[in-house]
């Protein structure tokens, strides 16, 4: 058990603990803050796996973007101090049973297969390699998905504006007789 292993287990416990609190706490604002901690823990896990680029992306997009968006929408839609209704006991028990059964099933499959390690080759992700592959026109290049995702983001942006735009109610002219 060296320092790296201890760091991994600490990060994992942090992610799972924050995740459990995010889905069980009754106050919605606290739930958002626990989600924030869980996402930061996942970024730390990416740093531990030495994919610094993905970790930076995770912090920028999730922590800086999505969680802030969620917190804004909480402020816009409801009073954040109120407690939410607790789930009914029947639903709670069946949800716990389903989650535990699914976890046991998947964990059993993973444990039995075991994933034999392949040749230990150092895993290095250079950002320049990612950029070249992303815009490469040759085989196994990712320029087509890149363009598709650009169009998708544009469509999502316009769609959000159209959906959330305040609809102007046509003013009915009062007929005075």
């Amino acid at each position: 058990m060296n320092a790296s292993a201890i760091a991994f287990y600490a990060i994992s416990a942090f992610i799972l603990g924050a995740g459990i609190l995010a889905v069980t706490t009754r106050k919605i604002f606290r739930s958002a803050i626990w989600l924030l901690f869980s996402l930061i823990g996942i970024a730390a896990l990416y740093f531990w796996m030495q994919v610094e680029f993905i970790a930076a992306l995770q912090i920028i997009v999730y922590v800086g973007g999505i969680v802030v968006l969620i917190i804004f929408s909480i402020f816009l839609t409801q009073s954040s101090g109120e407690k939410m209704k607790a789930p009914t006991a029947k639903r709670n028990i069946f949800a716990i049973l389903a989650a535990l059964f699914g976890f046991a099933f998947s964990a059993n499959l993973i444990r039995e297969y075991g994933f034999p390690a392949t040749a230990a080759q150092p895993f290095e992700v250079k950002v320049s390699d990612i950029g070249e592959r992303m815009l490469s026109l040759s085989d196994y290049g990712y320029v087509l998905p890149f363009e598709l995702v650009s169009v998708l983001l544009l469509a999502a942006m316009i769609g959000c504006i159209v959906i959330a735009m305040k609809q102007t109610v046509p003013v009915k002219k009062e007929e005075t007789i």
Partner: protein
Amino acid sequence: MNSIPLTHILFVSTALFFIGMYGLFTRRNMITMLMSVELLLNSVNINFVAFNKYLYPGNLEGIFFTMFIITIAAAEAAVAIAIIINLYRSHQSIDVEDATDMKY
């Protein structure tokens, strides 16, 4: 670094996935359900990066899939929140039990 086998990382991401699934089953508030979906997507991202690092260290496919998933998750969260705000405006509630106008 190599003292942690791949299966332990997969256990963590599986546990995170089922935590998100539990949240999706029990929560009835649309914003918290959206948070659970974010947890699910993140657990899948951990899987992609871990498989890439441990099984195919010469390739970059897992990294690319993770990047595209993060992009699409951002678009999905933005659209979902726009829909939630619009629903709140018309129904004064973001509980899924109250949004049954188009159910039958």
